[in-house]
């Protein structure tokens, strides 16, 4: 019980985070599959699962608009807060960071355990909200007031769930920062840290400082819902012809400010660990040092600072004035620079390498153009004049999904394939891995690329029937079927991953050494899988993280623990 369930070992907690987050990712994906069916074939009963959804949601298997809204809100919430962040930070951060810095465990093992269980409770709260009257939260993942204030009970569950999740990430981020600052092995200076550790450090600062304002906002919205206050309710609100009896005087825009103050740094919480994983894998598989390691580190730090002053570019449509818009446009353009530096450095790292196209490397290489598309399509959204046209269209959906889905998620898959041998002692199957990769790569683009076309044509992202009623959408509507079929195929190709994951755990090819990829960083210096306490003896670090193909050496990699010969 203490060993596997209420464990305080960072590796067990990392695995707990990983498994839970992968389940949530699959669940969130399933919600989206149902939505995609509705968008492509509105008014037709959902095959297979439609009959199980209940009459309140989908009578006769045909989805109701209210249910569609629940799915939309919960897809976003689950994917971001319960899927990607816990996988990127909770799982990879927990498992890999202490190993990469040569630490025996996280600095506060008990807090670490509490962080996981708080996350778990948050997840349970979110899931249970599907069963309350009126169903789950249905005001979008952003929970904009006043819509969310007057929404059904599910929204209260959403707020309580968020408070659990915020507590979890607070405990986690304190733990990560202390661990990285305090528990580095002897000789492991900051500029010798693997880039992944740097990415996690900056990510932790973002979580630590950006989440509390959302907690404040959550408390205020709870007060609005439960104590009858009007923090986010303006005076003179009329609902269904009836004036709302509240004191009024609140500000709906205030919610948006507080929400996006979190949610913009959150974007970098999603992407930085992914960049970290990609950097590790690229250096290892090109057998070259990362190009411009230092500029990548400084860019990451700068990115962290800047991400706190760009939030209102999500709010160009709120009428906050041209001066403020101009300020946030400028900061938004500035923040694109460090991202471009990191991406360019990763791209240039490929140049002249003898690349091993292993499964993790395929995912990591695909990350580069995918994140590139996601980033570049963001520029028109960061400028108010073009944003006014594109706001709330499928273009926005396409843009941020390119960053998070084929961007971050591909990097996370790469990480799973890459570190799987360390965790289990067995490799994942390469053939299944490659099928998973090529299938996912083709069909994920099949989903998101047409979204740009629909978005530029002005199709709103919130239409329950995919835009059937709208004259201006008619010319691009046929893409809906194309996108949905791509989504179903994408789902099919994930089965290869799931099978591979479980099969390799039991039957995968055993690794013969503790360092199967011939890597340089410290996590490969442990026994496989690492025991409690990680390292057999305290170690000392003598060199930077990526000393591959150093001229004049007998092997093409020098682990960080290899002493300099005098």
């Amino acid at each position, binding site marked *: 019980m203490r060993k596997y369930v209420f464990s305080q070992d960072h590796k067990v907690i990392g695995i707990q985070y990983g498994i839970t987050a992968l389940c949530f990712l699959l669940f969130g994906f399933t919600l989206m599959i149902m939505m995609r069916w509705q968008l492509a074939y509105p008014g037709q009963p959902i095959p297979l699962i439609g009959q199980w959804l209940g009459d309140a949601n989908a009578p006769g298997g045909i989805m109701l608009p209210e249910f569609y809204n629940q799915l939309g809100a919960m897809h976003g919430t689950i994917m971001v807060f319960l899927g990607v962040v816990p996988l990127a930070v909770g799982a990879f951060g927990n498992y890999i960071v202490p190993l990469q810095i040569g630490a025996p465990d996280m600095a506060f093992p008990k807090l670490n355990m509490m962080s996981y269980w708080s996350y778990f409770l948050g997840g349970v709260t979110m899931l249970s909200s599907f069963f309350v009257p009126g169903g789950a939260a249905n005001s979008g993942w952003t929970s904009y007031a006043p819509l969310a204030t007057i929404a059904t009970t599910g929204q209260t569950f959403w707020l309580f769930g968020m408070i659990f999740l915020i507590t979890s990430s607070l405990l986690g981020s304190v733990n990560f920062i202390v661990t990285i*600052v305090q528990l580095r092995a002897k000789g492991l200076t900051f500029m010798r840290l693997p880039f992944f550790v740097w990415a996690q450090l900056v990510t932790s600062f973002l979580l*630590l400082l950006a989440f509390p304002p959302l907690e404040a906002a959550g408390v205020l919205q709870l007060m609005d819902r439960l104590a009858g206050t009007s923090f986010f309710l303006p005076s003179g609100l009329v609902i269904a012809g009836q004036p709302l009896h509240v004191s009024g005087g609140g500000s709906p825009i205030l919610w948006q400010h507080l929400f996006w103050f979190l949610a913009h740094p959150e974007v970098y919480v999603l992407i930085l660990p992914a960049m970290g994983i990609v950097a590790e894998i690229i250096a290892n598989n090109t057998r070259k040092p990362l190009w411009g390691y230092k500029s990548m580190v400084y860019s990451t730090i700068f990115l962290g600072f800047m991400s706190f002053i760009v939030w209102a570019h999500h709010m160009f449509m709120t009428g906050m004035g041209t001066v403020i818009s101009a300020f946030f446009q400028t900061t938004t353009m500035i923040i694109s620079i460090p991202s471009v530096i990191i991406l360019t450095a990763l791209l240039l790292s490929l140049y002249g390498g003898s690349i091993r196209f292993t499964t993790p490397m395929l995912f990591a290489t695909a990350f580069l153009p995918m994140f590139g598309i996601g980033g570049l399509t963001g520029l028109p959204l960061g400028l108010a004049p073009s944003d006014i046209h594109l706001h709330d269209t499928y273009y926005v959906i396409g843009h941020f999904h390119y960053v998070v889905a084929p961007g971050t998620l591909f990097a996370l898959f790469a990480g799973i394939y890459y570190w799987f041998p360390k965790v289990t002692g067995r490799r994942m199957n390469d053939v299944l891995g490659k099928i998973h990769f090529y299938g996912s790569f083709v069909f994920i683009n099949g989903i998101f690329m047409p979204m740009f076309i629909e978005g530029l044509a002005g199709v709103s992202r919130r239409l329950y029937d995919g835009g059937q009623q709208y004259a201006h959408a008619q010319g691009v509507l046929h893409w809906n079927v194309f996108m949905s079929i791509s989504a179903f195929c994408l789902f099919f190709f994930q089965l290869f991953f799931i099978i591979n994951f479980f099969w390799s755990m039991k039957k995968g090819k055993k690794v013969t050494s503790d360092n199967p990829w011939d890597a340089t960083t410290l996590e490969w210096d442990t026994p496989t899988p690492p025991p409690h306490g990680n390292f057999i003896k305290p170690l000392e670090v003598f060199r930077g993280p990526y000393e591959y193909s150093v001229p004049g050496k007998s092997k093409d990699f020098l682990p960080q623990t290899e002493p300099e010969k005098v």
Partner: protein
Amino acid sequence: MQVPYTVNTRSDTGLYNAKLGIWLFLSSEVMLFGALFSSYILLRVGADTWPHGYEHLNIPLGTVNTAVLITSSVTMVMAWASLMMKDFAKYRRYLGTTILLALVFLVIKGFEYAAKFEHGLYPSTSTYFAIYFTLTGLHGLHVIGGIIVNAYFWGPGSKMWKTDPDRFTHRIEIAGLYWHFVDIVWIFLFPTLYLL
């Protein structure tokens, strides 16, 4: 291998783990209350009318409470100092006083709340009262949290003094830092809500 620097400081950072941890936690708390204070400013600037705090709130009671909290911060430091001087009995007395003062604060706050409710003033009355109850309520929860932590270190948690006195002294320092933060929040809340 054990987790290092739980008691000793790391030479290049000059910190032990928990000390860095509590400062990070407090920075996050600053962001929490910072967001709430910002909301207060935004709501007040946007409001047509906004009452002055002194028209509705009891300033003498608020002043007494401020003094109570500041005194409790002083006794908290004395508790830690007593441990540094290896005087455990004195430590118990000072920490006990801190806990009692915190309880006094809550009792006075309770009277203030009761008086408001008697006059029919609730969070739903106006945005001013909404923010008053939210901010002081959240601060009150922090006070309760502090009482729980301090009571633990006064009672069952103090066994560690026998087994690991250095680490126990660190724990009191950490609890003290948190307690000062709770105090400082009130020092901002009092003028903002009562005087302005």
